[in-house]
């Protein structure tokens, strides 16, 4: 199963985790990115994610394609939030299933590392006293 989506609604990680895994696989690996309080010594109140949606979906698809070509990935689920994400809430869910765990770890790490490099999505951190795009750190 392959599923690649951006969504403005909160991520239902409980439902998502159930969609990953087949009877041919021994390993399901998931990564959930969550909004954390600490950043550069300031206290984050919430995040806002903006995406170039059509291009982001294309780039996520390329990443899934490459992961599936390099490792025996059966299920590949990537869902990323857009809009406002509260503290502790998930911003991205990635799930892969593979016959053995070693390849699952590698595929999962490749997917999240590459998302952070190539997918046109931007995070803005909000603090008590202002906000800042993360790529614009002083």
């Amino acid at each position: 199963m392959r599923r690649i989506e951006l969504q403005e609604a909160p991520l239902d990680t409980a439902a998502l985790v159930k969609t990953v895994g087949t009877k041919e696989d021994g390993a399901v690996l998931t990564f959930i990115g969550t909004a954390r309080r600490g950043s550069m010594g300031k206290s984050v109140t919430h995040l806002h994610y903006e995406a170039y949606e059509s291009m982001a979906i294309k780039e996520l698809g390329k990443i899934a394609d490459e992961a599936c070509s390099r490792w025996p990935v059966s299920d590949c689920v990537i869902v990323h939030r857009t809009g406002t994400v509260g503290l502790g809430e998930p911003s991205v869910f990635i799930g892969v299933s593979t016959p053995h765990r070693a390849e699952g770890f590698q595929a999962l790490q490749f997917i999240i590392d590459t998302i952070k490099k190539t997918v046109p999505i931007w995070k803005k951190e909000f603090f008590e006293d202002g906000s800042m795009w993360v790529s614009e750190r002083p």
Partner: protein
Amino acid sequence: MKITVKLFASVRDLCGFDEKEIIVPEGITVEEVLKRLTVSFPGLGAKRAALLCAINEEYAPPDAALAEGNVLAVFPPVSGG
């Protein structure tokens, strides 16, 4: 010829628009469009080295040439995940 420029995140905030059609000479490159934008929005200059560009939703290098009707997206380093 006419192209569409789309801006995102801090670049959009800086320039004050998210999408605009502009008229440019045939065969203009990405780099040349960025230079024109920087004339109008000098704040872009300091960000120039980090900016990323895409033509019709595919990453494009500075020397890529634009064609009639292309959509050029300009944005800062991505920070999703």
